């Protein structure tokens, strides 16, 4: 390198000095004043500074030029000695002006070179960002990044990306020159562990420097730059690599968000389809069930007239089952509506005793064998709620209580205002059988089937409690169920907040 510079410098020096000296002689022969010759030499120095890449070479050339002038054009000629001391001044000025020129020139050249390099970097980054903006998936991002970076660094570049679920893939795209290959990561577990526990900007193994590409919350990929002995990345390249990582992270994150969004949309669509299907089926089931209920009831009346015990019992069985199915269907309908968020918004101030009264009326019409004790506050209590939904909650809870009690057992319904929490509390207790401990945590799960034997009617808790929970949650309240002390019965407690935005 240095040798080449010296050879180039010397050749340039000899060449230009020869031309200047010839021109100087010509001027002398033609009788031009000596100043012109000095000017020619100054020009020669500038040309040499321009051609020379090296600052030192420029200065050496300047001194050489002064000596050459001294040698050829000052008396005694063809020696380096000077008779006229005034020439010393000329030499000093010449030397200094040459050094100055040389310095300035090489500085300008260096700046130009820097600007050029910076421009190239900018162009590379611009290209990258531009292409990344158009990329539609992580595969094309890998290709764009490796192609651009490898052409800039003139060495191989690999990129490992994470798949849709955020898991790092086991293979990666590697580009070197024009060849692009899909490579497997050797010893993936070790690799993954090293990246995960990394504290520095990159992890250097024997073959690769691995730069993790981090998104806002998680790892998005890993950039792999091969280690080539004797060819270390310089400061500029390091900086550029970091810029690349930034752009790549942005692009990968964008893709990730887009993919997530489309997955979400898909899930939402499926959900909507399912609930629409469920609702339309339920809706269609209601009418035939209503007619089964009605028809069996007529038959029961007829059986009573003819006094046929067998008929009557069989028909009552059908009637009970149909009735259970009907409630199930009503529950499914409410549930699908709730899931779509359609019912949550219809809250109005309701007088609690009216809602409870209407439920008790409806409930005891069918199930008059339980003794239901009801207590509401003496002062009329208005609570924001969707009355139809709260009715359904009460019906479901009373229905469960009914199933767990015997004839003439007592069901207590107690409603009061908890002023400290500013909420209405409703407690429904029955003194029937308690619920198995193993079932307690699951009662609010959809379609949970209790293992307990000896529960009358349906063993399946089905939809009742999950729906109650969904409705109460939609009101911003809480619901819980627990066994009473000494395992003598069950209490369901639910609350409704008093302060809720009212929809008029």
């Amino acid at each position, binding site marked *: 390198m240095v040798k080449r510079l010296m050879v180039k410098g010397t050749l340039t020096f000899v060449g230009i000095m020869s031309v200047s000296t010839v021109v100087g002689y010509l001027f002398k022969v033609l009788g031009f004043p000596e100043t012109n010759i000095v000017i020619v030499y100054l020009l020669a120095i500038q040309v040499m500074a321009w051609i020379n890449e090296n600052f030192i070479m420029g200065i050496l050339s300047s001194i050489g030029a002064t000596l050459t002038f001294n040698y050829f054009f000052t008396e005694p000629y063809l020696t380096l000695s000077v008779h006229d001391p005034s020439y010393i001044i000329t030499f000093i000025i010449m030397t200094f002006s040459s050094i100055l020129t040389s310095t300035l020139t090489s500085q300008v050249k260096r700046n130009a070179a820097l600007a050029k390099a910076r421009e190239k970097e900018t162009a590379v980054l611009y290209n990258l960002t531009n292409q990344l903006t158009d990329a539609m998936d992580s595969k094309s991002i890998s290709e764009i990044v490796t192609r651009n970076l490898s052409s800039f660094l003139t060495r191989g570049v690999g990129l490992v990306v994470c798949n849709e679920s955020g898991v790092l893939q086991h293979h990666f795209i590697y580009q070197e020159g024009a060849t692009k290959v899909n490579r497997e990561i050797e010893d993936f577990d070790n690799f993954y562990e090293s990246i995960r526990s990394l504290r520095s900007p990159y992890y250097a193994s024997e073959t690769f420097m691995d730069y993790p590409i981090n998104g806002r919350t998680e790892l998005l990929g890993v950039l792999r730059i091969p280690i080539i002995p004797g060819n270390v990345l310089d400061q500029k390249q390091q900086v550029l690599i970091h810029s690349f990582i930034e752009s790549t992270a942005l692009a990968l994150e964008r893709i990730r968000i887009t993919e997530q969004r489309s997955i979400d949309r898909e899930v939402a669509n499926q959900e909507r389809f399912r609930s629409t299907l469920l609702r339309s089926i339920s809706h269609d089931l209601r009418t035939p069930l209503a007619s089964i209920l*009605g028809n069996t009831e007529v038959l029961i009346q007829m059986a009573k007239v003819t006094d046929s015990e067998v008929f009557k019992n069989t028909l009552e069985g059908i009637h009970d089952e149909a009735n259970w199915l009907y409630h199930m269907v009503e529950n499914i309908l409410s549930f699908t509506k709730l899931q779509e968020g359609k019912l949550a918004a219809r809250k109005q101030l309701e007088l609690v005793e*009216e809602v409870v009264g209407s439920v008790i009326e409806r409930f005891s019409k069918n199930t008059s064998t339980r003794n239901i004790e009801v207590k509401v506050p003496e002062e009329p209590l208005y609570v924001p709620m969707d009355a139809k939904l709260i009715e359904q909650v009460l019906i479901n809870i009373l229905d469960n209580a009914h199933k767990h009690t015997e004839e003439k057992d007592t069901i207590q319904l107690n409603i009061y205002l908890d002023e400290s929490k500013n909420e209405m509390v409703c407690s429904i207790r029955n003194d029937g059988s308690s619920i198995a401990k193993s079932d307690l945590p699951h009662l609010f799960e959809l379609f949970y089937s209790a293992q307990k034997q000896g529960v009358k009617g349906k063993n399946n808790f089905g939809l009742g409690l999950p729906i109650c929970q969904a409705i109460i949650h939609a009101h911003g309240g809480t619901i819980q169920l627990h066994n009473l002390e000494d395992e003598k019965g069950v209490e369901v407690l639910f609350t409704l907040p008093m302060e809720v935005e009212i929809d008029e």
Partner: protein
Amino acid sequence: MNERTEYILIIEDDHQISRFISYALELEGYKTKNANTAQGGLSMLVTEKISLVLLDLGLPDFDGLEVIKRIREWSEIPIIVISARDADKEKAIALDQGADDFLSKPFSAVELMARIRVAFRHVIRKNSFEMRTTQTVGELLMDFDKRILFKSSQEVHLTPLEYQLMVLLFKNVGKVITNRMILSEIWGHNYGTDTQVLRTLMAGLRRKIEENPAKPQYIITEIGVGYRLKDE
């Protein structure tokens, strides 16, 4: 089976339900006619001698509310509407448009008979021009002349508004009256639809005549629709 002379028209598009209603009514001795469209029902009303209409609100050809409006243009015949339980608004509108009562699906034959009996009783009362001076419901006795309500022979002290409300309920005993009807009857036609004041009045009244306002013996709330003074 006791024979009756009344014909009841069932306008219902679901064949099975229509048949069950017919059987139930016939068991009670009523005679029935069936129509499965609004159009068919309306023309049957003109040509046949019908005493009461059971009208399903979800008919294929016409809106049930439209049917009520058309019938009410020329006839005072009792109309009982049948609709889904969650269709409160529809029920309230149907009642305000002139229907006499409603039944929510699924309903039992017992409920159906009770509603029909009440409806017929009101027809008889309306036609008899009899000015009753007293009326009893359970332990309650209303003396219209003295403007006093008794419960178990004890006078119940009512405010003027409570008394008006009680009179309205007595006059419609067994039948549902909508919030709107009560509001316009007691507070005047231009009062609007704020039911809060009505519910407060009702809460006060219940505390005077019911043992437990949340387990009423007399005044039943039909949520989202109105109130009913229990009969029988």
